[in-house]
């Protein structure tokens, strides 16, 4: 028990800080993925065919290639890619992408591919008649988007988004391979120095379970809130 204390001998404070890091990585990645998801869903629903094809390729790759492989690509290749882009703009210095940025971008790209499909499905689930009705009473595109699409997409996409958030949270564990000190990495370090791997990986599992149950509860509440106007049988 002493091992988990908060003093100089215990790993309690380190584990707490690592939990914060896990949360930071997943929140940053999830928010970035929200942006990617909404934009790509809009693109997939547009009339622009080449754009739709490009986005189809993105969602297929993002959902069909292992997360770990994508993390390795960004970890080993992130700096090179950014420096290549910088050179196009005339900057020739050395730029390094740290483990945090590589991890956030990798998870955001993967999660964004899933969220694209969630948002696309939600928009398609809105009955066509409602959009026609809005147009028939003379709503502008913007007003239609604000009053008809957004409130319903929010409700319809929420269960899917909840799943995406849980995957993002669990995928942060994979970022530990790059050396970023989140829950898994900290558990690895602690079990190495204490020779008690079972205890520390159990603690890691417990922390993840805590985070996922709290967010599961939060999403259920949010679903109740967005569904407050829906009649139920």
């Amino acid at each position: 028990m002493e091992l988990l204390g908060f003093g100089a001998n215990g790993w309690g404070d380190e584990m707490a800080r690592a939990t914060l890091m896990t949360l930071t990585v997943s929140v940053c990645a999830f928010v970035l993925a929200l942006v990617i998801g909404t934009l790509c869903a809009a693109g997939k629903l547009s009339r622009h065919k080449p754009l739709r094809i490009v986005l189809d390729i993105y969602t297929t790759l993002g959902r069909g290639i292992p997360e770990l492989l994508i993390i390795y690509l960004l970890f080993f290749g992130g700096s090179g890619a950014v420096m290549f882009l910088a050179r196009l703009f005339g900057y020739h210095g050395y730029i390094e992408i740290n483990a945090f940025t590589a991890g956030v971008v990798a998870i955001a790209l993967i999660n964004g591919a899933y969220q694209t499909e969630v948002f696309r499905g939600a928009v398609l689930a809105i009955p066509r008649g409602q959009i026609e009705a809005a147009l028939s009473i003379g709503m502008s595109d913007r007003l239609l988007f604000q009053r008809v699409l957004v409130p319903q997409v929010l409700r319809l996409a929420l269960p899917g988004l909840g799943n995406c958030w849980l995957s993002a949270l669990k995928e942060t564990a994979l970022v530990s391979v790059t050396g970023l000190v989140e829950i898994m990495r900290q558990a690895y370090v602690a079990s190495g120095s204490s020779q008690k791997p079972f205890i520390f990986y159990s603690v890691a599992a417990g922390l993840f379970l805590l985070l996922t149950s709290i967010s599961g509860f939060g999403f259920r509440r949010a679903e109740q809130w967005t569904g407050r106007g829906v009649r139920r049988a």
Partner: protein
Amino acid sequence: MDFRLMIESILPILGGARLTILLVTLSLAMGFVLAIITALIRRSRLTWLVRLVRVYVFAIRGTPLLVQIFLIYYGLGQFLWVRESFLWPVLEKPFWCAIIALTINTTAYGSEIIRGGLESVSWGEIEAAKSIGMSGFLLFRRIVFPIAIRQALPAYGNEVILMVKATSLASTITIMEMTGVANVIMAESYRPLEAFIIAGSFYLLINFIMTRIIQFTEWRLSGHLRPPELSLVATH
């Protein structure tokens, strides 16, 4: 882009593909059987077993697979009694640890999918079977199970894809499957894109084949739902 490096990485990564496929098929096969058993327990009246399965599903779905793999591979070795037990020859091998972790993982997700399928079987169908005297195992084998599986198949297809991707985590415990091999090539050559493209394409190919198998099974199981084929050419 270094095409020579790309061509040179094909063979090693293809060698890793053997392990990837072995990991997927073994854990999916065992996981499927266990998923059916745990789903049936969830719907039974064995109160304590039901609770146990619920806790198990909750714990597995709420934690990352990486934690589960590390708990089995690194964690269990902490205990002397595990190291002295007859199971140690299995538990000290990374390959079997990966198989165990993947099976435990997919069983939990699969159990919920199959349970959903079992719940979709309507009362009318069960009553109809009972009315002609079917009961017990015959009722399950001929009526409940086929309907449930057909219903669960699309969701199970997604789980199969997730499992193909999940095998990449085996590389974290020294197993040289596709991602493990690709990682070594990336780290040694400092050219990550080449190995990524090769390994990524193989993963997409495996996933493509898997979805086709699932689609074919679905098609086979839903023959009665298809409209009868009309022969356009007169046969007589």
